[in-house]
């Protein structure tokens, strides 16, 4: 799993404890280092508007994360219960919030719920999105309960897309991330594999992978309508 973005750097000690105990990889950032996205992107973000004295930094960061080409999600906000009114009119900046002080069980439950909503199953080896289920452990994929007979490269491409729902990838990115080397045949290879995947998904599910004109491909729905 990709790391969670955690703000601020260093994060509150009890948050670190919770994350480490639940086994979530994370990386703490401040306003500037938040711009350096890891290669695989972020799994999501936990932003603390607490202990930072109620300043605007936390919301500014949320806004920046949401305004990217592909808005970062899920985003969990940690707030001081005394300042809940700050959330008003900012509902689009976060997916869920939690009041400090933190309780480990609650953080974990909320994260699980958020990941489930954005296409990550409650079991780490399952990726679920609508009718599609991928089992990363057994390499099996099914759609609407029907097993898909995929070739290895088709599976790898679907796995990559389904674990990054809502994001638009260029052909070049897909080529380097899925094929992993300068595959000869260029980005046409990606088009051809997407077509094969759509054929196997069947007409009613082919739209799970949408073509974003002159950019590339996206799996699933964008969270934020253009």
């Amino acid at each position: 799993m990709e790391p969670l973005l955690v703000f601020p750097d260093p994060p509150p000690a009890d948050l670190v404890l919770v994350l480490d105990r639940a086994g979530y990889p994370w990386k703490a950032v401040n306003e500037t280092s938040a711009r350096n996205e890891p290669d695989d992107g972020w799994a999501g973000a936990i932003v603390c508007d607490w202990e930072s004295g109620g300043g605007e930094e936390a919301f500014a960061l949320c806004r920046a994360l949401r305004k990217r080409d592909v808005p970062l999600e899920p985003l969990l906000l940690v707030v001081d219960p005394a300042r809940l009114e700050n959330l008003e009119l900012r509902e689009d900046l976060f997916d869920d919030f939690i009041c400090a002080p933190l309780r480990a069980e609650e953080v974990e439950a909320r994260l699980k719920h958020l990941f489930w909503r954005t296409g990550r199953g409650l079991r780490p080896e399952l990726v679920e999105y609508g009718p599609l289920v991928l089992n990363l452990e057994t390499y099996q994929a099914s759609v609407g309960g029907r097993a898909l007979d995929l070739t290895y490269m088709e599976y790898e491409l679907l796995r990559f897309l389904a674990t990054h729902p809502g994001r638009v990838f260029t052909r070049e990115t897909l080529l380097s991330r899925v094929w992993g080397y300068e595959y000869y045949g260029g980005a046409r290879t990606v088009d051809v594999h997407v077509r094969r995947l759509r054929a196997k998904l069947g007409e009613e599910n082919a739209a799970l992978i949408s073509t974003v004109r002159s950019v590339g491909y996206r799996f699933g729905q964008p969270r934020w309508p253009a």
Partner: protein
Amino acid sequence: MQSQQEYVLRTVEERGIRFIQLWFTDVLGTPKSFNITPAELENALDEGMTFDGSAVDGFSRVQESDVLARPDLNTFQILPWREGDLAVARVFCDVLNLDGTPFEGCPRHVLRRTLEKARHKGYSFYAAPELEYFYFASARPDGVPQPLDTGSYFELTVADLAGDLRKRTVLTLEEMGIPVEYAQHEDAPSQHEIDLRHTDALTMADTVMTARLVVKEIAQERGVHATFMPKPMEGVQGSGMHTHFSLFEGDVNAFHDPGDPHNLSKAAQGFIAGLLRHAPAITAITNQWVNSYKRLVAGYEAPVYVSWARNNRSALVRVPFAKRGKPESTRIEYRSPDPACNPYLAFAVVLAAGLDGIDEGYDLPPEAATNLYAMSPAELAAEGIGPLPGSLADALNLMESSELVAETLGEHVFEWFIRNKRAEWADYKAHVSRFELDRYLPRL
């Protein structure tokens, strides 16, 4: 590679696959296969499976008979139909010598080698064939072919068996990850066409092998015989495999040039010129049976003369209009191949001919603008338009004197092919046909 192997082994286990069919192709394009069990699979993936090559047409001579089939994991695919009640998967193989070097007689290797040449020049080669075939009531060689329907081009008939077979075939192909562009009833009674979406030529050659099998398999389930015989009935159109070809440089269609009046790049023009120059010599490969030449006659929309044109369907090479704003769809259509060819060898010789045209900078002759079928031989000669070979014998003579074909196929395949086909021609020449009996017996 390791994870790919793990993927295959795990899938076999998870899905309860009982047999894995190792597929390969002989020199004439006949599909060959042997089954292995999951227990043998890991070893087959690591080391390949040894088999006796002398049992396969065009492979080994008796004294050097053993060869290896090594699965190409990219092609591992569970089959949508079952053998009895057992789940089965297939994987295409490359055939190797026992020392692990590519085996000279393997058609897949012939195509790979030619694609490698293109790759050195920075090109990848794409193909999109249109497979035509007939459904008949039975395959009895002594019988007269019995069409299932009398529909014609694009005709919509209600509840017809053939249309149903075609639909199920398309769905099965899609399930196997083979996107179909169109499927329709063709011109002749009981004739159908399935057009495949373009992909790289090696995958496409594998796909043609798969598609031919799927068409026959689905027909057989309903007691119907599907045939890719080029000309099963006289007086109606034969079955072709018009194939659209293009070269790409990375993402860019190398055939497209917005500055050219026809949008054809220098490379495209060279490719067509090379194809036209070598067309007579490669015809034995694209049309490899005695019967293939019964299709290549005037009057049935099959090419007879070596020419090119835009949107003139009597030409051998047609340049379809690319949709506006879709430069990537610029391509050429080569109209002589029939669906009974060996797709690996056919794509290899087409590519080699086209590349030669680019390398040597051959000039593109003028476009054939009128209907070629309507011109007299003298008019054609004046235009510099020569004929395609009229028989397998002519085609073999032209092929035999072609450096390009010999080099592309390699000595082993080239020599065996000529020998095998000369024997076929000799048998045919000695045969006294119904035509002769009807015509001469009463009169002479």
